[in-house]
């Protein structure tokens, strides 16, 4: 899958914002301590890049671990709940309740239990990623064409073969939708969690920059957060296009 050229126009609002920013700095709307010039932010990148890189690495690692664990739990669980009505009846309400609690609301509890460090942050990311993955996996399993399941049953296929050869691939597009939401949610959560519960990462870097009045570093941090978010999302899309290549033709047909 190639990214069409017109996609680049998606950056247009950002360029307008950049222009407005430069104009505001030149016009002196805010003192430069609050609103540094774009050039000052670039300078902050040049000056602090090892620090920025290390913090970005810490944040990305936490998200990968948290979302990874959530993936390993949610996909098998979602497949079972989606396949067996009885399991669905027992879990449905609980899932709806748990997923309504924003993980950020659990930060105080996470710190009480696990102190300051990687553990509370990863647990919060795990919780942020778990529900969208679980719900989308269940949804994907439910959407399976009934005829395919009949074919499998008439062929006297065992449950394991049905799960591996039919339910998992059929649910894959929906699992990827869940994964995109999970990575997005995990990324939001890691920055917040790092402002409170950890002493490294982009969230921590932004907060300390605020305490030392380095707004150029705050803005640099925000830009990195946005850029990584975009990269992660595009990466997931590419991966989905690879894994679910069989789906392309179906979508083209439906249109």
């Amino acid at each position: 899958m190639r990214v069409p050229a017109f996609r680049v126009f998606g950056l247009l609002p950002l360029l307008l914002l950049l222009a407005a920013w430069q104009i505001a700095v030149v016009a002196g709307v805010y003192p430069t301590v609050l609103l540094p010039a774009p050039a000052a932010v670039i300078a902050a990148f040049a000056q602090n890049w090892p620090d920025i890189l290390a913090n970005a690495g810490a944040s990305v690692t936490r998200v990968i671990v948290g979302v990874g664990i959530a993936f390993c739990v949610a996909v098998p669980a979602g497949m079972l709940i989606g396949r067996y009505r009885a399991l669905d009846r027992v879990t449905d309400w609980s899932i709806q309740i748990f997923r309504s609690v924003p993980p950020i609301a659990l930060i105080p509890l996470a710190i009480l239990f696990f102190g300051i460090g990687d553990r509370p942050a990863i647990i919060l990311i795990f919780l942020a990623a778990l529900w969208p993955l679980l719900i989308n996996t269940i949804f994907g399993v439910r959407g399976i064409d009934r005829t395919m399941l009949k074919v499998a049953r008439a062929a006297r296929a065992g449950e394991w073969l049905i799960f591996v050869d039919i339910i998992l691939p059929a649910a894959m597009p929906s699992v990827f939708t869940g994964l995109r939401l999970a990575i997005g949610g995990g990324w939001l959560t890691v920055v917040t969690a790092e402002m409170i519960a950890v002493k490294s990462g982009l969230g921590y870097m932004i907060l300390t920059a605020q305490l030392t009045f380095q707004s150029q570093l705050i803005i640099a941090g925000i830009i990195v957060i946005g850029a990584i978010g975009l990269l992660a999302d595009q990466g997931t899309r590419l991966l989905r296009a690879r894994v679910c290549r069989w789906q392309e033709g179906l979508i083209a047909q439906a249109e």
Partner: protein
Amino acid sequence: MSSFLECIGVGKIYEGKSGAVEALRGIDLQCDTGEFVCLLGLSGCGKSTLLQLIAGLEPATSGTIAINGKALDGPSAETSIVFQDHGLFPWMNVARNVEFNMKARGVTGKERRARAAEFLAMTGLSAFHDRYPHELSGGMRQRVGIARALTTRPRGLLMDEPFGALDARTRGNLQEELLRIWETQRTTIVFVTHSIDEAVFLADRIAVFSARPGRISTIVNVDLPRPRDPNAPRFTELARMLRAELAPNLHGAPL
């Protein structure tokens, strides 16, 4: 001749929210080994329901169904089913789709590939073994469905309006191919259709259904030599007779 399939007093009642619906009542039907039997009727007459019961996908509410003298308890190892909407797996290429029923039976990989090649050749699909279902025409997809059903060398082939969604010419070609396969494989075929011409062209015997509740109103022997000519006087005469047999159902019963 020994009887391959025997239905005695088969009835099926669906318990729905708006009360019970009697789909089938008092079905008596027996098919000899190697016989081609069509179940003919208008939509909603229960002919497809009976096929589902024979395939072991649903239990009968009353009566017994026996295959090769053995009472049915779930899908039989001696039958295979082909559905109108083919039920191919879009994430598997043609070869893997054809291998699925053998995989379900635990046939080894080497034997699977050899037999898949054999039946792909028989259905004229050898050149398409690595294509995906969405790359194939409707007629070719149904060939894949038939090839998949044949790979387990079933003694009975159950077909649920397999050519119902195809254009007239493709349909005619597949009917002729099916007869060729039937003659070489010596399988018993139970074939559901709502097309009178199709039934007369294919069947040794035609079980005519009437609706609400579904029952067999008459069984007609097709005493025509093969290959059959749809323009022969006896062919049109049989077709006319069957049309009259189906006609009472047209009055009063909503379609």
